[in-house]
């Protein structure tokens, strides 16, 4: 009974609009059609956009693991006080708007930006590097934005790994590397998978970052949706793209839930 209001909100604000979206994607001029879905097979722009989006999501996910794992590892090993300091630093940029951070990256990475000026000024390179207005700049800023989503679940999982286990491993003669690879890493995997799913799925829906830092040639699914509405006024096409992306996300969750229980990804257990 207590759930009723929350359920109502979800049905009215989420389920109904999504149903409307699905309905819209199979309609044209008042009749049923699959034309919007056929474009996924016939229009190269569609699959190229999905390919680029999934590639970016994969790169971002891999990079956040590489960057986030050591941070979480260090934070989990510190005293309560210091781990709070580290986690606050991880979260600090999180409270800044995505738009502001995109512009900040622009200032850092552009041709006359801080990084290029420093590199050319010190004579390390002759011509400025192309760091932004391409996929590289987009990936860079996306990693920065999504890093907390990797660090936090990792930290939560690592915190729960009993210290005695690694000590036991060491007392049995395991080298630190061996103990890490055989004991700590496997135990931290659920947190890592949770972080990977979050980062991957969130990247799939990125819009402002590629729009501002992609230089026009980094084309992600959300941009394809907006372009279909703004430029072509094709609500049906835009809906079908959204539906396909959503199905992709559901499939990812389903696949991952075969590996680890869904509740653990969401952090309820």
């Amino acid at each position, binding site marked *: 009974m207590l759930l009723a209001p929350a359920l109502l909100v979800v049905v009215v604000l989420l389920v109904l609009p999504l149903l409307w979206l699905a309905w819209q994607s199979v309609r044209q001029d008042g009749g049923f059609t699959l034309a919007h879905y056929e474009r996924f097979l016939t229009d190269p722009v569609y699959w*190229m956009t999905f390919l680029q989006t999934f590639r970016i999501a994969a790169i971002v996910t891999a990079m956040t693991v590489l960057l986030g794992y050591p941070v979480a590892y260090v934070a989990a090993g510190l005293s309560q006080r210091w781990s709070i300091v580290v986690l606050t630093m991880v979260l600090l940029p999180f409270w800044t708007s995505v738009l502001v951070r995109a512009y900040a990256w622009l200032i850092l990475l552009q041709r006359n930006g801080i990084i290029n000026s420093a590199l050319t000024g010190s004579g390390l390179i002759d011509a400025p590097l192309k760091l932004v207005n391409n996929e590289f700049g987009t990936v860079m800023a996306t990693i920065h934005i999504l890093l907390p989503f990797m660090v936090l679940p990792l930290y939560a999982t690592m915190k729960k790994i009993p210290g005695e286990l690694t000590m036991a491993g060491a007392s049995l003669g395991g080298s630190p590397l061996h103990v890490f690879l055989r004991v700590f890493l496997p135990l931290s995997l659920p947190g890592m998978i949770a972080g990977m799913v979050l980062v991957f799925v969130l990247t799939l829906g990125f819009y402002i970052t590629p729009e501002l830092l992609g*230089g026009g040639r980094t*084309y992600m699914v959300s941009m394809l949706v907006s372009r279909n509405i703004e430029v072509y006024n094709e609500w049906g096409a835009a809906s079908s793209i959204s539906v396909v992306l959503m199905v992709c996300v559901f499939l990812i969750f389903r696949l991952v839930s075969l590996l680890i229980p869904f509740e653990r990804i969401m952090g309820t257990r």
Partner: protein
Amino acid sequence: MNYRLSMIVLSASATIFTAGMASAEQITFVSQGGAYQEAQTKAILDPVAELLGITVNQDSSPDAWPVLKTQTASGKVIWDVIDTPPKDCIRGGEQGMIEKLDFSKIPNAEKMPAEYKSPYSVAYEFYSSVLAYNKEKFGDNPPKTWADFWDVKKFPGTRALRNHPLATLEAALLADGVPADKLYPLDVDRAFKKLEEIKPHVAVWWTSGAQSAQLLADGEVDMEMAWNGRVAAVVKEGAPIGYSFNQGFLQYTSLCILKGAPNLETAVKFVNAALTPEIQANFPTYIDYGPGNPEAYKTGKISPERAAEMPSSPENAELQVLVSDEWWSSPAGEEAQKRWATFIQQ
């Protein structure tokens, strides 16, 4: 139901305005918002309201087309006059969403060139896509034509173009040697082929006007196609940027009236009054976009120096190519827009 509702609104506004206004006549005018709509309020809307003794209510929408479609489809039309690219007026007219204009009731449009009018629309204000460049980079020998823009040997440097085919395809064709008066109908294949040539040298395909201005101001690109108002603003801020109207692409937004507009008669009066040369001549005082009615330049209200900065002054208009909205709203134009996405991604 609709009628009753509008009567309630009318009588309510009548009660509110009888104190100060001579008449309860009103219209709802819609433009694109921002600094542009603010400038119009002072330049056009307030003087027109005073001239006709009407109330001009304002609404804004960066893209009126979807709203236009919704309002006319649902039968709940609340807008009267919109300021929007003529393409939307024309295709809207063809789909029964826009009123045909009765030009006998719009005498102020009489002297305007025929290409500034369509059965559904009349030019209101002009802007231009110009070639802007970094003065520090190019000194006394800046790129002046689109052929120069394409010439990466003579003019090395980074470039930016708008992430949109309109005016970009035209630039490619001019660069490829098509005479300006033979552009339309566009040879789309030839244009895309020419664009492939410059593609590796284009650092940014910009999507918003603000972005195009930032690229120039920060020195991210050495030359760029951008809207004259944005370029002029960057120049005013002191950035070493130059531009000229030579081979610029003249574009305009126009006024049109919604089918089923609640205040049709007043709306027609409004359109005529908004085209009054003396009122149109106010545009340059407030913004870098030019009057839609060239007669404004004959009123003496616009100084020759200011006229030189205006895309629609007769001298500048002659240097430029008028973009054909008719072609862009044709099936071939729509096809070119769809092809653009493939071109950008490959």
